[in-house]
């Protein structure tokens, strides 16, 4: 495992957070998925959210993107208390999300998926219609900037490979993420080149002053772009560390719950 200096990291900017989540709890019936999680994201930073499977990462970001209403806790958006009633509300506030399941419709074309819910229009009154040319062009450009040359924008998403699909979801979120970009394990199906493209995109977006929330299983990917790291375990935060305050090994241990990983590493005689 290498600490990586590919991207330039300033000190985490001490500006006011765009989104601040305080003591978020989320219960599904008798399942406590989140038991008081606090988290914030500031303009121009990449805040990584790490944790094992089932830790509650996806549930947590869904409370941020309007999918779930938290059972308890407060959400502040740009300093004001805010309660999103739907993903649409969150999007309108400038929060765009790449969900782990991608939220794509296989039967619809790439373009229609790209703009689903936020279609640009032209004309007015009864002649108001989708601006199909512009939609196609933007989709092709967005995909190209992520390193994928789409065959045709009217291709059904169901015919794309897993990685291509994931790239459409990322390109879409980057296009619409005006203030906050949330990525839930966005690189799980990607090859090496597309992964480094995504990491470079995160860096680019962050430089534009957008706050990025990056969920990953991969400590190397997180360390490559992260400014701050928060580890979730069984619905609770184990703490937040700034870049430089924590070593990759410590982070890895925290994520896996410590001891077990050390044991496994010992028995396998190497680095996991």
């Amino acid at each position, binding site marked *: 495992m290498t600490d990586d200096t590919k991207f330039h990291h300033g000190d985490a900017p001490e500006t006011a957070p765009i989104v601040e989540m305080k003591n978020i709890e989320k219960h599904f019936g008798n399942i406590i998925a989140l038991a008081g999680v606090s988290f914030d994201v500031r303009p121009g930073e990449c805040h990584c959210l790490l944790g094992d499977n089932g830790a509650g990462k996806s549930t947590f970001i869904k409370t941020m993107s309007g999918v779930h209403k938290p059972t308890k806790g407060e959400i502040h958006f740009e300093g004001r208390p805010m309660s999103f009633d739907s993903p649409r509300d969150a999007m309108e506030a400038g929060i765009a999300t790449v969900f782990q399941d991608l939220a794509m419709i296989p039967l619809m074309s790439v373009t229609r998926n790209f703009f689903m819910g936020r279609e640009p229009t032209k004309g007015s009154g009864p002649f108001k219609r*989708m601006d199909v040319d512009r939609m196609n062009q933007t989709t092709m450009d967005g995909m190209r900037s992520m390193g994928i040359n789409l065959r045709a924008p009217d291709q059904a998403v169901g015919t794309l490979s897993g990685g291509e699909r994931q790239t459409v979801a990322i390109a879409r979120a980057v296009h619409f993420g005006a203030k906050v970009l949330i990525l839930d394990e966005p690189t799980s199906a990607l090859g090496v080149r597309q992964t480094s493209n995504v990491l470079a995109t995160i860096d680019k977006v962050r430089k534009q002053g957008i706050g990025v929330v990056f969920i990953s299983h991969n400590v190397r990917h997180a360390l490559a772009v992260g400014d701050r790291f928060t580890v979730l375990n069984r619905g609770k935060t184990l703490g937040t560390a700034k870049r430089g305050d924590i070593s990759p090994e410590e982070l890895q241990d925290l994520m896996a719950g410590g001891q077990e990983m050390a044991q496994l590493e010992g028995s396998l005689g190497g680095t996991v």
Partner: protein
Amino acid sequence: MTDTTPQAVVDERLKSESFGARLMKRPELGAIAGVILVTIFFLITADPAMFTLSGIINFMTPAAQLGILAIGAAMLMIGGEFDLSIGSMVAFSGLFFAAATVTFGMPLIVAIPATFLFSAAVGSLNGFIVIRSGLPSFIVTLAFLFILRGLSLVGLKLATGGSTQLRGVRDAIEGDWLAPIFSGDAFGGMFAWLAERGLVETFNNGAPKVPGLPIEIVWFVIIALLATWVLLRTPAGNWIFAAGGDANAATNSGVPVRRVKISLFMVTACCAALVAIITVMDAGSTDARRGFQKEFEAIIAAVIGGCLLTGGYGSAVGAFFGAIIFGMVVIGLTYTGFDQDWFQVFLGGMLLIAVLFNNAIRKRVTGER
């Protein structure tokens, strides 16, 4: 799609798609092929009178009445839901309309909007229950199939003092300026003009055999065009496909899925109301059997038109042609020597073929693996 940016390269992995292959991806292809096949069948077997102007009007009239329902049903199916109460809704809104004009003596300018509002309210109730309960719309609207049919019967008896037929609509709307928009024939002048020049068949006295285009055909075409425009060119259309394709993904992407679905239930109910208004004004009365089993016929036409039962795929143009196939078969058999009851066999067969065909097409479109 052509690209003008310099760095764009033609993807070497993209085989150039023939016109035929592109056509194969359109949901309405099956229905258009069906129309051609059925036409050929009747050209061979039926009396040539079937394909004269009056013969065509003859089968297009029931096709149009069904087609208006089928287009509503198709949009709802694309949006991922069913409405089995369409047929009963025709009877129920027919009763409302007849009672409004006859019993309460409202002019059409009041009665027609009131009928649409009333039907939309019933449709939204359907939708609201489906959305709120999370139950399949199949079962909720099956309940409404019986509820609305029963209410129509009870209501008719109340309105007439025991009869199941409410008469007198024609007298009640006599001379109403709105009547020509919902009843009778359109373009009468044009047909007379064509007759004068011998371009259409005439009776011996010189009057055209077909006095005009039945108004339901005009509505049918307008609604098909409107629905196609909405589905293919407006954000609302994109939301309908998304809501039916995967409601969860659509919601998470910012599509107001509940609003879309409830609106679609209202649209379907309004289609039923339109058919009710047109047919009640045409018949001059309404009865409890109005619209009987139309829900099945409408859904069959939508499926023949390429709609998937699972939602997210289909077209209004397909439903348009699906309804025409329906009309051609029902009326066409009377022009042949076949027993008319073959109609049901024919229909079931068409439905089965359409479903198998749609399934195969869907796999092609999505490249399902």
